[in-house]
């Protein structure tokens, strides 16, 4: 009894703060999701309308489009970043062992302000003076500005996202490689395995948990990505690069339909919590195995 009270003293400041600034807003959004509340429509002043917002959501094709765009961006981005990150890690591991300074240098794009990374994309792809855009335009490979094209805008975002996050995947895997135990390699050598066999049978299974964690974080990030897209295309042209987060932003802070926006973020939240549960379980399983230490 006494010890319980004791624990409460330790966690109460954070618990109260969490309650006030995270749970209260969350519940506010939950209640607003059952109301009509819009700054652009004077008849929608907060009256209860049941599940109307959710009904509207189910029939909104733009909503499905935003999930489609999110997956169209996520899947190639993750496959590409996973493969390239693994390649880079294999290449880097030896050099990083000697020069740890390579890790912060490599991670510069990952940790830099996303808005600035988006700006790097905009400037590089600029058809007038961008170092890549100018080349693509002059050489006649493309006829329109990359970010103004419904076909090329999403690949451009994937490229910029990869510029930012491939180093992250590579560095996580490099850290994994540097921590691998020696014994399995000695055993493989004794068994006469060649380099390729060693890589497939020894390195990959040992690295697998690192790759899973890195890519799971990327999967969840795909639903968070907003800044880069907002800087590069604002979801356009049309809605061709409008991911879930951009769609939610447009309906809340551009159209000011806060009731509908609330329903929307509830759906997104449920979706994220399922993904996070997977990530969390993977992390826990891994920490209890102790292989991550």
């Amino acid at each position, binding site marked *: 009894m006494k010890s319980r009270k004791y624990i409460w003293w330790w966690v109460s400041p954070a618990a109260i703060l969490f309650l006030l600034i995270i749970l209260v807003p969350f519940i506010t959004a939950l209640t607003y999701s059952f109301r009509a509340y819009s700054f652009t429509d004077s008849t929608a002043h907060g009256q209860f309308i049941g599940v109307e917002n959710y009904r509207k959501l189910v029939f909104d094709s733009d909503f499905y489009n935003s999930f489609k765009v999110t997956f169209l961006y996520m899947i190639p981005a993750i496959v590409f970043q996973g493969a390239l990150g693994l390649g880079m890690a294999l290449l880097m591991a030896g050099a990083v062992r000697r020069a740890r300074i390579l890790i912060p240098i490599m991670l510069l794009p990952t940790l830099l302000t996303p*808005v*600035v990374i988006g*700006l790097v994309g905009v*400037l590089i792809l600029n058809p007038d003076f961008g170092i890549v855009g100018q080349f693509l335009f002059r050489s006649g490979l493309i006829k329109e500005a990359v970010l103004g094209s419904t076909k090329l805008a999403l690949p451009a975002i994937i490229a910029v996202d990869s510029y930012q996050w491939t180093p992250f995947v590579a560095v996580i895997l490099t*850290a994994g490689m540097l921590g691998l135990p020696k014994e399995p390699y000695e055993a493989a050598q004794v068994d006469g395995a060649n380099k390729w066999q060693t890589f497939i049978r020894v390195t990959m299974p040992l690295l697998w948990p690192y790759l899973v964690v890195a890519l799971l974080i990327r999967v969840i990030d795909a639903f968070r990505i907003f800044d880069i897209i907002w800087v590069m295309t604002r979801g356009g042209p049309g809605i061709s690069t409008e991911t879930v987060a951009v769609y939610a932003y447009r309906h809340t802070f551009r159209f000011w339909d806060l009731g509908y926006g609330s329903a929307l973020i509830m759906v997104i939240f449920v979706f994220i919590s399922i993904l996070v549960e997977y990530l969390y379980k993977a992390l826990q399983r891994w920490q209890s195995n102790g292989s991550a230490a």
Partner: protein
Amino acid sequence: MREEFALIDTTKSEKKKERYFTNDRILRWTSYVLTLFMVLLFLFPWLWVFSLGFKTRTEILSPTIVWLWKPTLANFHEVLIVKGYWKLIINSLIIAVSAVSLCIIIGVPTAYAFSRFPIPGKESWFYMILTFRMAPAVVLALPLYIIFARLGLLGTFPAPIIAHITFTLPFVIWLMRSFFDDIPKEIDAAAMTDGYTRTGAFIHAILPLVKSGIVAVTLFSIIFSWNEFLYGLILTSDATRPVASQIPSLIRPHGTLWGEVAALATVASLPVAILIFALQRSLVRGLSFGAVKG
């Protein structure tokens, strides 16, 4: 012991004399060179954008890329001093420092409690904390906007500071727990048998051991707060807006002053670039939410 090492060393160097260009050696050096090339490839776009900040408008818009030019600070002067955007940097600092220091003061003891005490429903709480950390910003931005509008807080500093706490506090608790978990519980027990209370043991025995962890978590949180875009955009006014939230509005469909945008982006990136090097040893752990302790 020392002799043994010397022995190994001589055998190795004798081998080297035999054949200097072994396959392994060539492979290793090739990988070093390729790594260097790769690092430069990733740095190049960023450096190129920086270079634009030091160019005049004609040099930027030149149909052929200008590689050699006389650097000018005119863009920096124009955007920071004449347009007064240096205030945005101060705003970013005010928001980041307030939010992060509050989260460290509150979050560190909580993380310790999560690491040591049998809190009922501990793992569910932890899972919920992570979920809110991983949700898109718009999920809390909308209700916070509604609440702050009611309270008349929109456009004041508390609005973005409170919003930044919503993602900083979960991060601090989450990552600090992994640092506390690394410290054996026997140290707490030993300090308490020495006559310290639980709080005394925490302050005198445990905190000194996680000092570097606290520094890492602080710097990481400052970077995340500095980088944040959405809350800083919708919950602030022109007087309280942080720098990251202002940059996109400088890009216009026509007549964007690219030199000034690049200059402001350069200034906004520098603190992050410096902090990354200070964080060196904890980067991997912070980015993987404590999962990888490389």
